[in-house]
């Protein structure tokens, strides 16, 4: 049974339909990458999955139960595309606030905070406000607040955007370690070398999945040397089929 499943998700903003009925499932311990260009609907989809917004139609189930549910959210972590930090608080105060919402206080909070910062490869300076950190440091602090309560399911919206290659590698290693301990992750990206590190990829374009499978599988099916070429191949196939069949979501 998948840890998370989304079925026929349709999302609309005003007149514009942004997701045209997408479905996916993620297994325990898996890192699923959502790969797609800017504006494809990645953030919209993960927001629906995380329960931040409600879809127009479609069903999301986490741990076998329907979302949104506060009980389930307890076991989920979410890192937004924007840092979503209180920039007028210190790093410790940000961690304390988000920790408190998951019931972490006192020593438990202290240890959880230390672990999360270690995973995010961030050293904090006491008394320094979040707005005084560099952009990449804020990104990692944002990650730390998302993993603080050791969620079973992590939803990360472009977690490494704005990070240097060294930190990016470190953080992906941390993701892999978490996956090995049975945590499940959904990560959006439009960086190909990150996509390469996912167990499975869902390629999304204009609100539909154009392909799904492991990186190797996708390259093979497309007969392409790189994931980038594979993406272009599946995009062309998709365009051809919608042009022919009139398109299910035109």
């Amino acid at each position, binding site marked *: 049974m998948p840890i998370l499943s989304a079925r026929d998700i349709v999302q609309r903003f005003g007149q514009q339909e942004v997701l045209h009925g997408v479905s996916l499932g993620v297994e325990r311990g898996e890192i699923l990458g959502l790969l797609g260009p800017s504006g494809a609907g990645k953030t919209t989809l993960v927001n629906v999955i995380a329960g*931040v*917004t409600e879809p127009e139609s479609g069903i999301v189930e986490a741990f076998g139960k329907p979302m949104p549910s506060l009980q389930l*959210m307890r076991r989920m972590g979410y890192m937004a595309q*924007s840092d*979503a930090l209180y920039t007028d*608080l210190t790093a410790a105060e940000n961690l304390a606030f*988000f920790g408190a919402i998951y*019931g972490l206080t006192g020593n438990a909070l202290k240890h959880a905070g230390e672990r999360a910062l270690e995973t995010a490869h961030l050293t904090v300076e006491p008394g320094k*406000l979040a707005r005084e950190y560099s952009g990449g440091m804020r990104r990692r602090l944002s990650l730390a607040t998302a993993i603080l309560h050791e969620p079973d399911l992590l939803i990360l919206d472009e977690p490494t955007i704005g990070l240097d290659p060294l930190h990016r590698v470190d953080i992906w290693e941390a993701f892999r370690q978490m996956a090995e301990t049975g945590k499940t992750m959904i990560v959006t990206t439009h960086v190909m070398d990150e996509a390469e590190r996912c167990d499975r990829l869902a390629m999304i374009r204009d609100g539909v999945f154009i392909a799904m499978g492991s990186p190797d599988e996708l390259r093979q099916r497309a007969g392409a040397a790189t994931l980038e070429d594979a993406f272009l191949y599946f995009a062309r196939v998709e365009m051809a089929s919608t042009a022919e069949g009139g398109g299910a979501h035109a």
Partner: protein
Amino acid sequence: MRNAYAVSLRILRQFKHDPRTLFMMIVAPVLALFLLNVIFGSPDYEPLIVTADMPSDFVSALEDAGARIATASDVEALDLVEQGEADAFVTQDGDVLRVWIEGSDPSKTGAVLRAINVAQIEALVSVELDIKPITLPGGLEIDVTEYLPLPSFEPPAAPEVAYVHGSEDMRVFDFYGPVFIGVFVFFYVFITSGISFVRERTGGTLERLMATPIHRWELVLGYVAGFGLFTLAQSAIVVAASIYWVGFPNLGNFWLVLLIALSMALVSLTLGILVSEFANTELQVMQLMQIIVIPQILLSGMFDLSQTPGWMQMLGKAFPVTYGAEAMRAVMLRGAGFGDVAAELAVLWVFAAVFFIGNIVALRKYRRI
């Protein structure tokens, strides 16, 4: 409940790192009240009146009535009034007193007319009839005043005035003071709470919170509690400064005044958060404030609405500020007790409760649960 506590604790910490906002929340309303008090507390205006060919009795009577006097020729005098350098020009045309008034400031016009009225009565009273006894041939003197009824110029006796409320010493501003206290608390609390909640949206933290197991009501309660503490402090300082430092007369109980101010702050707080849910930027909060707060202040009873069209009076009654202002006046000017203003307080708390629930409902647009 625990989450509400976490939210309010976080707000307190944000304030701790932002002492300037804290300072402004308290200093700004006190400063405004102080300035108003100095303006309205200044002595009455002494009009500058130019006279030409007026009897000295009348001129000194004008001076006694509190006017400053200058003399000039007709042409010069009219010119001075025209330039706004003098408030009025008074001259005599036969038996008729002719007055030209500058006229653009009704309060100065009033001061001129009052001085002239007083002077006219005084000049009349001070006319001494110089009637000499008639000496008849033969040396007999007859005092005709004994036989003639002389017109009496006695001014009417001053009425005996008793004040049911207030006193002779009450200045115009003292009537407005209680309303200003309430309105300022309302205004400044609205700005701070509205802007800080809209920041929660622009910074992405509201969406982030919606991904956590926090109830919508916990978030709203946390905001109200966290800000409530500050508005409590703010109201206490504004009320105390107004009464003990600026010197507004207060016939009622200090704590009752504080309770009313705090109730207004609570309405403002919940309304500010509600309004910010319909704004996307801090600028939009300010724009909405112009539509939502300014009319409330104008129709709060600060100005007498009893002669305005019925719809306007109805509109005033639909606004919470009106009830706060009325209760403030009742307590501070008429020494009303808790029982007298309980109805107004109840209305304020109902408004606060409605806005509070409105906030929880408005957050549904993010998450149903």
